[in-house]
């Protein structure tokens, strides 16, 4: 540990209490995670399904890939949009650690932007330009999936590095040293598996809805294929979660064990939800709409619980460092209130707009 390497907190006070920023950080990160899971997991799933289908257009796996890409045209945009808020609130609370970690990673951190850009445009190339069959289309999709995976790797590197000031001196000389962190790959796998499982579940849910409108054979094929992915993602997730915990630093692990109800509750909820999900998935051979909806809701609940736990794990990692600093506060409630009102109005406007769109179908001359 090199305590003098931790920059001092910003001289300008936080314009609100820490608990408020922590709440906003966790809440907006959860929203962000929903779309990240779709973008990362969905693109990985689409790439594998596309390769497995051999490029045959009518194969359910190929249809799944096209559908997932269609969703992800929006999923990636929304992942970036919703990612702005947690990035913002995190910098208020943990800026001194976050900036240091990103500077130590330097070009690796900057490379995230390049990977994101390539991944996103490759997705659009698959969507707009590629023939429905053949190798070029598959290559764009695989490239996109690999780029998003690279983005996830960089994010995990930053997450681990910013939470461990004791590793900064080593990272200054060799930034890639973070790959040797014992929790790096389990943590990465934890996120990737969660993303794949979630997106497979969304695909399954959507396919069953579509099956009611016709094309039942293809839709049922998609649902069954996606259901298997959900199941295996959960199985591996539970095993990986146990491995991740066992490899976590002693201080973090004991903090999780002795942290009291506030720590135990979300962690227990997350683990129990995972086990219940596994039981539900194993018992159902042919997914039905009602059951899938229930599983999807439970999955979202476990994601919410794990988002809280993730935040608490960061606090445990940084416990020693943060104890040394007092973060000055000077709340500005007036402007916060403006934000809260505008957020409510903005979300209501979005909801109203979507409602208006859904209730105004038109075709031919009457359509826009």
């Amino acid at each position: 540990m090199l305590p003098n390497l931790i920059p001092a907190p910003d001289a300008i006070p936080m314009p609100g209490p820490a608990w408020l920023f922590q709440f906003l950080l966790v809440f907006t990160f959860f929203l962000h995670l929903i779309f990240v899971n779709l973008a990362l997991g969905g693109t990985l799933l689409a790439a594998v399904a596309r390769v497995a289908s051999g490029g045959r257009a009518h194969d359910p796996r190929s249809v799944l890939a096209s559908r997932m890409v269609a969703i992800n045209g929006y999923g990636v945009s929304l992942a970036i949009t919703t990612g702005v808020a947690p990035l913002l609130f995190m910098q208020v609370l943990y800026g001194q650690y976050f900036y240091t970690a990103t500077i130590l990673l330097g070009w690796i951190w900057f490379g995230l932007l390049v990977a994101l850009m390539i991944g996103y445009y490759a997705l659009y190339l698959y969507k707009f330009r590629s023939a429905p069959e053949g190798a070029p289309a598959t290559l764009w999709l695989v490239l996109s999936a690999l780029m998003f995976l690279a983005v996830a790797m960089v994010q995990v590197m930053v997450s681990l590095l910013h939470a461990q000031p004791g590793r900064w001196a080593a990272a200054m000389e060799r930034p890639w040293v973070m790959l040797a962190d014992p929790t790096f790959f389990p943590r990465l796998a934890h996120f990737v598996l969660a993303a794949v499982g979630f997106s497979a579940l969304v695909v399954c849910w959507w396919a069953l809805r579509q099956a009611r409108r016709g094309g039942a054979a293809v839709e049922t094929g998609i649902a069954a294929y996606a259901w298997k992915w959900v199941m295996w993602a959960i199985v591996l997730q539970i095993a990986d979660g146990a491995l991740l915990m066992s490899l976590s630093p002693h201080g973090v692990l004991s903090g999780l064990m002795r942290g009291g109800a506030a720590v135990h509750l979300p962690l227990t909820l997350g683990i129990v939800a995972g086990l219940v999900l596994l039981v539900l998935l194993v018992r159902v051979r042919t997914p039905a709409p009602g059951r899938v909806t229930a599983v999807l809701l439970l999955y979202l609940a476990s994601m919410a619980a794990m988002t809280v736990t993730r935040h608490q794990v960061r606090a445990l990692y940084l416990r020693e460092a943060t104890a040394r600093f007092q973060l000055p506060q000077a709340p500005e409630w007036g402007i916060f209130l403006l934000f809260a009102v505008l957020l409510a109005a903005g979300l209501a406007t979005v909801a109203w707009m979507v409602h208006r769109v859904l209730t105004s179908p038109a075709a031919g001359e009457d359509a826009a």
Partner: protein
Amino acid sequence: MDYPVWNPVMGGGVLMALVAVTHVIVSHFAVGGGLLIAVAETVGVRRRDPEYRELARRSSLVLILFSTVFGAISGVGIWVTAGLIAPAAISALIHTYVWAWAVEWVFFILEIVAALVYYTTWDRISKGAHLLVGWLYFVGAYGSLVVINGIIAFMLTPGKWLETHRFWDGFFNPTYWPGVVLRSGIVLMMAAVFMVFPALKARAGARPRLLRFLGWWLAAGTLLAYGGFRWWEANLLPTTRRLFLGASPLLPKLAATRHFTLWSMAATLALALVLLLGLPRRMRAALAVIVALAAFSSFAGFERLREGVRKPFLIQGYMFANGLRVGQISEANERGVLALSGWAAHRAGEDPVSVGRQVFVTECSACHTVDGYQAMGRVLPTADDLAALVTAARPTDARKVFAAQCVRCHRDSSASEMAESLPTAQEMRDDPESIQDLLAGMVEGTLDQLHEMGDVYVQASGTQPVDTTAMSHPYMPPLAGTPAEMEALAAYLEGLQGPAAFEPGNGGR
């Protein structure tokens, strides 16, 4: 100051410029495009003109591909880059304006969702609902702009915030409203020049009226931007204006950038009048590229100017370009810069040259590289410079060297007077050690001047902009640190010159 320093090869400023300029061009198109696309569709519906509708439709694809992908990612890119090269500044901005950014995020959500819905629902929903989505997109995009403008303008003219540290005092600062007007004009310019390309895909009969439609918007946008620009200039601090305005601006390159910006605006206006409004039938893709380049040049020029005139600050009156806060100067002079920067101290060691290198990295590397962008090798005087000064056969070189190396410290002198005070070229060749001492003295003298500049800031109230008129280097941050650190820095800089620098005729660099 207390963060590690990231030094990309091309210099952090250049990287930031690359990311920022491309982002602002696309993001301003995203705002203006929202207006022009919504107007075009509205005109198409009201006049029952399908060509306007098709223009809106084709433009919405461009908007999706540029705005929601490149614009969104490069917007995060600005944040990423700023965090890498100026973490203390971005931290200060976030602590001051986190709620403004949060408000901007709300507008951003509306903007992105509306853009995606708008593009997806062509031919699927009623005209009225689709128009509503288009106009909501514009509300979101423009709302985002007026919020971000407050933060950007704050960095240049924080106004009363320096005194009160109140949110609104900094947000509605002296260049806020000029910035809104200027950027409102620019968004129209960007939108019009981008939409010329989709307009060229219309059938031949419809192309002229679509191009004229865009021509009016481009001309109006350019005039609005020009008005906003002049208002913006008028509201700058006198010390800021002195950097690039007047008969002898302190930074001639910035003065040239200003001329470039204004001439590019004039060219954009002329092209709008001649090509789009006057000769729309002659318009081709190659000409559209020229119109777009003229508009992009004016905007990029303005952005370069806006960034440049903040010198020596990142946040005027509060934080210098190297992350040093005005309020830290005394402490840095007393305890040392390395005492404030754990990272520099960790790397420094005991050797004075190594200490000097870390002082350089901490205080100078935000603007200077050793041998790349703004290289110290080009800034430091050499024996060749002195030789050029005293050689009568090269009077032009002598004047150039005098202007580049001497005039800041010898304002009341001239090149010929300076030459008379120096040894002859032959004497320099005979006694290189004396030249080494002379050059070292120049470096130390300059460092002394930069250090003394700090006293002016310390003596100021800290709540008002400092008058930098009398400073030797008003566009540079002061050097802070203990006398030992200043000596170490001098030793490091003298070492950068190498032995060849002290021997005239060896290239000197």
